[in-house]
């Protein structure tokens, strides 16, 4: 296909979607960039032959809401549901609307809140970073937008249920943009799942803009299907005295490569990036979890825990960087993986890049079997080996489990954890 033709297709699709000219221009620019850019790099992990880009035009397809089971209404959260490209449920309580909170799908935001959208959309993650970020912007087809005005604190967590529709022949290219204005506070949970058996890529990006003194708790339960190749990139730009907590439960069944990024820009900022992952079968998963201390007196923490079952592979790179001038900063990271079978492969690599003397930095890493002392203790009370193993593993993953604010999502995570571990144990 000629370049001109592809551009024409993007113009047509953008028009069909009633996008403002500014978004179309950015799509076209991003498309041009794709020629010059390469896939992202990850130490010790190969994924360059994965089908992460689908060579087909941007198209708008509706997904049938009947196809996704409705959970019982959970009144503990403000729920948003997106199935493929279709927004099925989105309702912001009136008092939050009155307070100026905006919660919409990403394209409504581009149309109706053009200034705000343009000011922040893809400013933390930049299209020119790599081939997949450029692809993301050029072919974006789903997503959400949340803006919390100055000093507004949202008590109830917002839960976004994003369901990839693999009954369709479409990739999912989704963007969540959260802008927490100064002094605001929000808890956001995303739950990713897949319906359907088609082989599709998922290109999932999240930008958190945590302005001065704001607080964002972001948890994610990733449960994309085995026929999905996932690239995700999640990044927080963290202002002065702002707090960002990530708690990610990575339970995808398919191959996944992901970048977590926390940029501590302002003085006194804080980031705690927690992730747990369980891999099974022949799955391959590679994660870069990076925290960069730029501002003075910033704190950056990384805690990654993985369990590698059957013939799967999991690589955790923890990257802690302290930039020159970030006096009095703190960086600490833990990367630990449990290897549960002879065929399982994995690594936990702490990478510390420190350009400043006046800092506190630490790291710990481990790769190995479950703790034999803990196993012995549980078994000495009569608990069978496999059950004991699951209990020890649950403890090993506890830090992320307990950080998820919704009981419902927490229970879901525990359930799929038990299922994956039980399945994986049969293989041992």
């Amino acid at each position: 296909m000629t370049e001109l033709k592809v551009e024409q297709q993007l113009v047509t699709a953008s028009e069909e979607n009633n996008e403002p000219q500014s978004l179309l221009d950015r799509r076209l620019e991003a498309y041009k960039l794709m020629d010059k850019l390469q896939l992202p790099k990850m130490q010790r992990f190969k994924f360059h032959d994965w089908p992460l880009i689908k060579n087909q035009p941007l198209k708008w397809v509706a997904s049938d809401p009947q196809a996704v089971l409705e959970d019982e209404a959970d009144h503990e959260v403000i729920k948003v549901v997106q199935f493929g490209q279709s927004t099925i449920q989105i309702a912001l309580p009136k008092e939050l609307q009155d307070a100026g909170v905006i919660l919409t799908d990403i394209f409504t935001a581009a149309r109706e809140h053009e200034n705000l959208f343009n000011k922040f959309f893809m400013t933390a993650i930049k299209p020119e970073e790599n081939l997949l970020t450029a692809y993301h912007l050029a072919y974006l087809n789903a997503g959400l937008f949340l803006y919390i005005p100055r000093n507004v604190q949202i008590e109830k967590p917002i839960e976004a249920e994003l369901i990839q529709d693999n009954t369709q022949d479409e990739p999912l290219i989704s963007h969540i943009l959260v802008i927490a204005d100064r002094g605001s506070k929000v808890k956001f949970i995303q739950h990713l799942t897949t319906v359907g058996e088609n082989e599709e890529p998922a290109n999932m990006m999240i930008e958190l803009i945590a302005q001065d003194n704001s607080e964002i708790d972001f948890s994610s339960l990733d449960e994309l299907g085995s026929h999905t190749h996932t690239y995700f990139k999640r990044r927080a730009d963290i202002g002065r005295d702002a707090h960002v907590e990530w708690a990610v439960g990575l339970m995808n069944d398919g191959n996944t490569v992901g970048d977590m990024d926390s940029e501590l820009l302002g003085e006194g900022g804080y980031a705690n990036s927690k992730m747990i992952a369980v891999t099974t079968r022949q799955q391959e998963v590679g994660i870069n979890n990076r925290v960069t201390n730029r501002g003075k007196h910033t704190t950056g923490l990384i805690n990654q825990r993985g369990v590698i079952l059957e013939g799967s592979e999991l690589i955790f790179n923890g990257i802690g960087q302290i930039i020159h001038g970030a006096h009095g900063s703190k960086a600490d990271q833990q990367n630990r993986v449990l290897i549960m079978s002879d065929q399982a492969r994995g690594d936990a690599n702490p990478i510390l890049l420190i350009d400043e003397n006046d800092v506190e930095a630490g790291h710990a890493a481990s790769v190995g079997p479950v703790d034999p002392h803990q196993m012995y203790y549980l078994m000495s009370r009569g608990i069978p080996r496999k059950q004991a193993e699951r209990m020890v593993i649950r403890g090993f993953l506890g830090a992320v489990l307990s950080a998820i604010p919704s009981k419902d999502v927490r229970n879901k995570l525990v359930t799929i954890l038990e299922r994956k571990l039980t399945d994986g144990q049969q293989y041992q």
Partner: protein
Amino acid sequence: MATLEVKDLHVSVKDEESKKEKEILKGINLSMKTGEIHAIMGPNGTGKSTLSQTIMGQPNYHVTQGDILLNGESIIDMPVDERARKGLFLAMQYPAEIQGVTNAEFLRAAINARRADDDQISVMDFIKKLDKNLKLLDMNESMTERYLNEGFSGGEKKRNEILQLLMIEPSFAILDEIDSGLDIDALKVVSKGVNSMRGDNFGSLIITHYQRLLNYIVPDTVHVMMDGRIVKTGGPDLAKKLEDEGYAGLRDELGLDIKLVDDED
């Protein structure tokens, strides 16, 4: 009635530094029945913990000779969880800490592990039993929702071992230095817990360095262990005698050529 027999038991362990197998137990004989309380006393480094861990089935300890029989059946090839379900319990000197698993959840799993799938303990029965035992041990209810041993003080861990004992109700409990690091009040509470188990269906092997515990849990039989062997067996008065004369005194009296690790007063 259940029985536990240790016959000519030799046990070795791999030395971390030299990587060579080192013999720790050099022919232990011991025979007990439910309804009885036995005490094993001995100086540090003599092999008391090795004996208890070997009976329980800790995989680092290798039986090179002899046998251990539970109700006449050899258990030395059984994994630890199976031994536990057959009625053995070991209150450990250094209990593991397990984050993410609450004490209550752990206790239920342990109780249910020895019951049939269609006969699991009901929540009501479990809570009743738990409340009763917490009270007996003077333990706060909040202990049950805390993660297993995590951040527990030394004394709390010991109490928690006894709580497990009371909840699981094994036939034989080995208590390895349950008195170490306990003040007198805690010692009394722990003893009260163990004594409440006394009866025809319970036997215990109490391992201690000091005689003091045996004032509170009075044993039927006292064994003295030195250098991987039982060198003397007697009644409760043997413990008192040791208290007065020290291990060195007994060693000299028996004419043994053994170096004691720690100085005895």
